[in-house]
């Protein structure tokens, strides 16, 4: 069976982390979210993948190429205008026939979830899962395992089984989409609902992993989930006096300096330099070429490639984009916060700093919980940062 993976979106709500990358390329556990999705498909025997790409598509194409390195055969379909998920699927129409899967490239899924969808029987199906936060999603009303209705982002509670955006479909969906497009509707859930009026659409409930990253702090949950499966790999140079507990993967050319303490699960990429006397706690991912200076603490955080953390920095529940640079003694402690994203306020239970790519923060800076530092922002020494600093902003 073929799978159409939707990967054309920008991910505007991911703030500074989609400044130069599409959302699906954001790394969790040191691999892009999309790579985990393709991995799950391949593990379940789905090797033929059509990637629908759009925003910054070259980043995706140059990473996945023809898919051989990932055990898949990847073809590309280009969606030039991001009108909606149904429109996205239509772009892949010429490359599918018979039954096929549709999954969203920015939702983390495991084998179990894919397997539930594949083995759900014939005919169109929707993968559904239980959610704590159904008001953000399409709630699926089910009767006798069939989709009755899909209520998008209900204000009033109507149920807690949500549409994962993963479907098993066939060509019968395309005429339905065409009809809806004439009414200006370009989303897949509307098409599924319309399809369910003409033939039964199965609702398959999964207990496998399905996680969505809507906002930057969600990345930490995805990261922790992925790191559960991290392998113990000890490459690189580990100096005397380094303590490693739990599962920790350490890449080639990485140097862990004396006195460093690591509590897994932690994934450390290639060519990193950590310590002396740095503390890395679960669940943390350090990308490639990351430098964590002496006496630093990194706890439940994602540091993407080329991040450089000066001596004595503290990062908890934080995300730092590629090439972010923190000078000495910058603190981003965790705490509850109200964070504004795209004009909307969100209450977050626990979050540290959300630091965009190539942002630079001067010595002694304090990043208040939930502060968002834009990509390429420049912050002088001893600043206290709260709220949102825009991309390229300057704080003196």
């Amino acid at each position: 069976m073929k799978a159409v993976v939707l990967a054309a979106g920008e991910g505007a709500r991911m703030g500074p982390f989609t400044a130069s990358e599409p959302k699906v390329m954001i790394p969790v556990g040191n691999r892009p979210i999309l790579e985990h999705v393709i991995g799950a498909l391949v593990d379940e025997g789905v090797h033929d993948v059509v990637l629908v790409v759009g925003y910054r598509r070259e980043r995706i194409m140059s990473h996945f190429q023809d898919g051989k390195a990932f055990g898949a055969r990847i073809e590309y379909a280009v969606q030039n205008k991001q009108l909606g998920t149904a429109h996205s699927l239509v772009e892949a129409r010429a490359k599918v026939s018979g039954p096929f899967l549709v999954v969203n490239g920015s939702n983390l899924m495991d084998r179990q979830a894919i397997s539930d969808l594949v083995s759900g029987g014939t005919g169109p199906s929707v993968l559904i899962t239980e959610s704590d936060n159904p008001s953000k999603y399409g709630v699926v009303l089910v009767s006798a395992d069939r989709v009755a209705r899909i209520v998008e982002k209900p204000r009033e509670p109507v149920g807690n089984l949500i549409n994962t955006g993963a479907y098993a479909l066939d060509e019968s969906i395309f005429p339905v989409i065409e009809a809806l497009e004439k009414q200006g509707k370009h989303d897949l859930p509307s098409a599924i609902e319309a399809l369910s009026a003409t033939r039964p659409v199965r609702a398959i409930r999964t207990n496998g992993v399905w996680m969505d990253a809507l906002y930057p702090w969600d990345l930490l949950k995805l990261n922790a989930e992925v790191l559960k499966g991290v392998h113990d790999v000890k490459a690189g140079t580990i100096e005397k006096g380094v303590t490693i507990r739990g599962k920790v993967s350490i890449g080639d050319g990485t140097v862990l300096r004396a006195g460093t303490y690591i509590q897994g699960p932690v994934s450390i990429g290639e060519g990193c330099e950590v310590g002396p006397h740095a503390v890395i706690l679960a669940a943390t991912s350090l990308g490639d070429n990351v430098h964590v200076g002496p006496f630093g603490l990194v706890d439940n955080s994602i540091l993407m490639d080329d991040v450089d953390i000066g001596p004595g920095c503290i990062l908890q529940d934080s995300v730092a984009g590629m090439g972010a640079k923190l000078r000495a003694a910058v603190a981003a402690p965790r705490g509850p916060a109200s964070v504004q994203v795209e004009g909307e306020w969100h209450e977050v239970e626990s979050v540290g700093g959300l630091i965009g790519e190539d942002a630079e923060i001067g010595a002694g800076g304090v990043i208040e919980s939930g502060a968002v530092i834009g990509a390429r922002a420049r912050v002088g020494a001893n600043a206290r940062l709260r709220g949102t600093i825009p991309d390229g902003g300057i704080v003196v």
Partner: protein
Amino acid sequence: MCGIVGYAGYRQAYPILLECLKRLEYRGYDSAGIAIAGSGITVQKDKGYISRLEETAEPVAGTLGIAHTRWATHGPPSKENAHPHIDCSGDLALVHNGIIENHQELRERLKAEGHVFRSETDTEVAAHLIESHYHGNLETAVRTALQEVRGSYAFAVIHAKEPDRIVAARNESPLVVGLGTDENFLASDIPALLKHTNRVLYVMDGEIVVLGRDSARITDYAGKTIEREPQRITWTLEDAEKGGFEHFMLKEIFEEPQAIHDTLLGRIAEPELNSFFREGYTGIKLVACGTSYHAALVGKYILEEVARVPTTAEIASEYRYSKAPADRPLVILLSQSGETADTLGACREANRRGCKTFAITNIIGSSLSREAQRTMLTRAGIEIGVAATKTFVAQLAALYLLAIRIGLERATLGVEEANRLKEELRRLPRAVQAVLNQAPYIEGLALEYAKARDVFFIGRHVEYPIAMEGALKLKEISYIHAEAYAAGELKHGPLALVGSDTPVIAIVTRDHTYEKMLSNIREVDARGAPVLAIGTEGDKDLGKVVDNVIYVPAVPPLFAPVPVVVPLQLFAYHVARIRGCAIDKPRNLAKSVTVE
């Protein structure tokens, strides 16, 4: 410069040889041919791309054969001059990559002995020469014949009377053996083999290989057997597929952030310091050809500023024939393939002169990495597009690393300063990405300039070599006449050519030459030339003096060549695409130039 392949195994050789050959098309593509040993030797060849041969040739049964794709040096591209070449009897077929220097005298002698020549190539001489020494043993005949041949070559020969073997030999042209199960391969370069095996034996200069379906025996010219461990190639064929991109060149440009990232990987945290660079020279000489030479020109500024060692850059084909001065500089050789004939020759010459030699190359186990005393690999991955792009920026990344290392070893660079430079290096992949994100805008600009007949590129200081590289990219793939000048030289002549139909591409980043560049732009603007500038992000004034601007992120001037070259590569690509040129295979050019 040509590509050769060979197959001895249990499968039908014809489709395998053609498929392997296509992966060598980057080495030359003006004619191609194939010889199969089945019932006798069947040779088929034609002028043009390998796909043309595929159309005109008939599949021939047989499990052993050789094939060739040619880039003409002696004799124009034609069916007659295409390889394989056969001897008078038609029993022997031979393919060759390289140049036989004494082919004229051999040809006259063989003609006098009664041999009949069918082509103008130097290669055919070798076929007849081996025939003249053939007394029932091909290996012996090749060994004897080679004693009379001067020049560079990789040969592969088959004979109807010994249809179970290929005899091959190498001198100064690349040759590798691929080891399979019950089948073996032969090729000029590894990509040809990767679909079938990743176990290879490198053949060295002065060695002969006898290849059968279950054996690959290497001997020296005296006949002594050489034992060699096979090496495992870690990169795979998918590295060589286009993966959604229209051309390899575009794919490779978009791989530049990764190429820089990978080249820096593991070398920033702990540069591998040893005493190699500490002493034994007073100056550095960078030696290379083509695009690598432009990297060398940038390298001169980098090494002088970072490592504080007086440095010169020289074209390999000039250096190797120059007279040796008394001093012995450290000679750094740059070659993407590590097989560039002139760069290899320069390395040998430098070794002979007693210089320390250091190579920067993209191919592990390449001839250059074996000739030079030390090697640093750019980890750009395989590059198929004939126009070098990602390997160029990877070479620059390697030069920054090298300069830091030399500075630290010679204690001319402080640790603090080194750390500051490393920070900047870490930023480069994103600086390049930021330019790539503007690709649609650059494509739009290309449309405006695609009709030009002549284009001038100007820059100063470290950006002058980048202007040269921009001009080279444009001419090699779009066939537009392009020339680069140090901007200050314009008024010493070239300005006479500037007018409203000669666009000028000016590199005007915010450095100490900024004001001077602006006055140069005014000079050309006054003559009506359309000006496209590459400027620093945030420089709003620039837009007022020129027609179009492509902005690149602000980086310290020494690092500017990396983000600045990217829009020029994209510009050349899109201009060529709009003009409908064969981007990945420009006419008359080949990827690695293994002839002199």
